[in-house]
């Protein structure tokens, strides 16, 4: 029974080790939560220069505080999933690494930003929308126009994400204008516009 004897002899040390671990755990948790908090809004995301058009257009949008009550959705409210905490952290880490990689190893000015906007379903999460718009299902029942598409959405008759119907309407008001202003000669217009001005 050597093991029990060792436990008995070192009981004070083990007690303080346990207490220390608890304190350290709490501290780490608080720091992590604080770090997550600090790295989720437009002040942090806007630190990268390339985010200027996104931040500018966001400030002019209802979701960016330009509304009559001054409420504001943070970047991560829409751009990270909110279905569970693990998914949230995994996605945050992956997207964070992608942002660092894109900003350091590549030239983000050369990206096709307009084309990327068309793929918004990959980086705007329905669970984010629904965390604030909690009463959407009921609220759209009596609105004749909104009823049909939202009924299909909640009845899972469609695989569309929120942002696919509300593309260009939500989050960043007139983002295209801000992109053009910021990227200048690097701006790639929607290629459709090119097709439509060139001759067959």
């Amino acid at each position, binding site marked *: 029974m050597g093991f029990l004897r060792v436990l008995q002899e070192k009981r004070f040390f083990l007690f303080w080790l346990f207490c220390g671990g608890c304190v350290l755990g709490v501290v780490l948790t608080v720091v992590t939560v604080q770090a997550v908090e600090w790295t989720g809004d437009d002040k942090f995301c806007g630190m990268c220069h390339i985010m200027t058009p996104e931040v500018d257009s966001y400030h002019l949008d209802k979701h960016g505080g330009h509304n009559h009550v001054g409420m504001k959705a943070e970047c991560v409210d829409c751009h990270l999933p909110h279905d569970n905490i693990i998914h949230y952290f995994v996605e945050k880490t992956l997207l964070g690494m992608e942002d660092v990689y894109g900003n350091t190893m590549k030239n983000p000015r050369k990206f096709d930003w307009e084309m990327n906007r068309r793929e918004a379903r990959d980086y705007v999460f329905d669970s984010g929308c629904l965390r604030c718009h909690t009463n959407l299902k009921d609220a759209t029942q009596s609105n*004749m*126009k909104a*009823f049909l598409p939202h009924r299909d959405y909640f009845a899972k008759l*469609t695989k569309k994400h929120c942002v696919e*119907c509300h593309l*260009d309407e939500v989050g960043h008001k007139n983002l295209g*204008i801000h992109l053009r202003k910021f990227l200048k000669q690097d701006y790639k217009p*929607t290629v*459709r516009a090119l097709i439509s001005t060139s001759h067959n």
Partner: protein
Amino acid sequence: MRASLAGFLAFVFCLGWLSAHPPRGGTSIDNAMDTQLPLKTFRGMKAEAKGCIECHAKKNPGIVADWKMSRHAHAGVSCIDCHAVSKDSPMLTRDGHEGSKVPISVLVSTNTCAKCHEKEVTEFRHSGHVRGAVQVWAKANMRDLMVMVEGRNHPDLKYAPAATGCQQCHGSIIKLDKNRRPTPETWPTYGIGTAFPDGSVGNCASCHSAHKFSLEEARKPAACASCHLGPDHPDIEIYNNSMHGHVFNAEGAKWNFDAAPGTWKVPDFRAPTCATCHMSGNTKSMVTHNVSRRLKWNLFMPLSKLRTGGYETASDDFKYENKITIGNPLAGNPKGPEAARAEMKAGCIDCHNKQHIDNFFVMADKNIMLYNEYWKEAVKMKDELAKKHLLGKDMWSDDFQNTMYHMWHHEGRRMRQGGIMAAPDYSHWHGVFEVQQDIRKLRKIYAKRLKTNKIED
């Protein structure tokens, strides 16, 4: 005397007063539809939405009248819900919108329709219909025919044949001027494959005409007839020639075309229209806007092949790759041509027994395979002539190539489409009879060219 004079004067006075004060408002005598009354809307709509309706009721009363009759109006979907765009939209009208601050575009793409009618638009984008506009411009020989041959490459007039002809059914690739309003060369069009500057392809208004967007209308053969007619694919003539069309023409006016979506079935009608066979739901297939889904064969190409291609690709190519492609002419049922045929037959069973259906399709298929025999013989002769440089450079003035073109593009399509849609006159007199005449003519030219080793004058 005096009394009659007074009566006469009173009568003249009345006439004068009436002409000076013509009756106003609702019940004018000589104007059955009085558009003088200002339209007011009293629904729970935004002030801007009401503004559009009330102003356009004065300016384009026909548009608003259409909308008033539509289900959209019942559901509270108004002008602004489809025509308003964000200020960074590639389709935003830049020179303003008189009397309103709402940014708009005259163009409404299927992206907008898909916000509420997603299923319909997705199915439609899987169908051959979406290929309409892009494939025309993707093919060098078609561009050549429209612009160079028919348009004479005239510096100013060369796009007239495409704008007034081809594009009205096929659709155009819409181009915008500096105010981002559509150009006369590319708009207006009701064409079904119209490609919009926002990347979406297709036009719901081709069959559900604007601004009523009627379900009833699209269920009637007239919706298809405005394009599926004429020498190359006389589908409405074929329908009229068939017993189905016979019954429709005799009593279709009394049928019910207004059943709720997905419920239209016998006894709403006594014979099918185009929509019944190609779109309506049956025991094997859901109601679908993919009109290629129930087709076993391709019946417009020079050689009829089985439709093994799955879904149409032209829409995705345009939307995601920015490419104008010829699409997927063998688009059909993703489960293959036999599944397509089974889904088609599942509609017939409502009115016909199995033997009737099976026997009919056996012979219709043989008719298609017979056409292929004619075409293969023609190709063999053409290849031989090409090898010996005995084909004219301009196919439109070369007798051999011209006859061969008509053999597939006109007569051959009539033979095949007439056969599979039960139109005896088109299968025979306008079809195979002409095809056999063509092959005899081709053989004659072929023999002569080989013998003389030159192209005849």
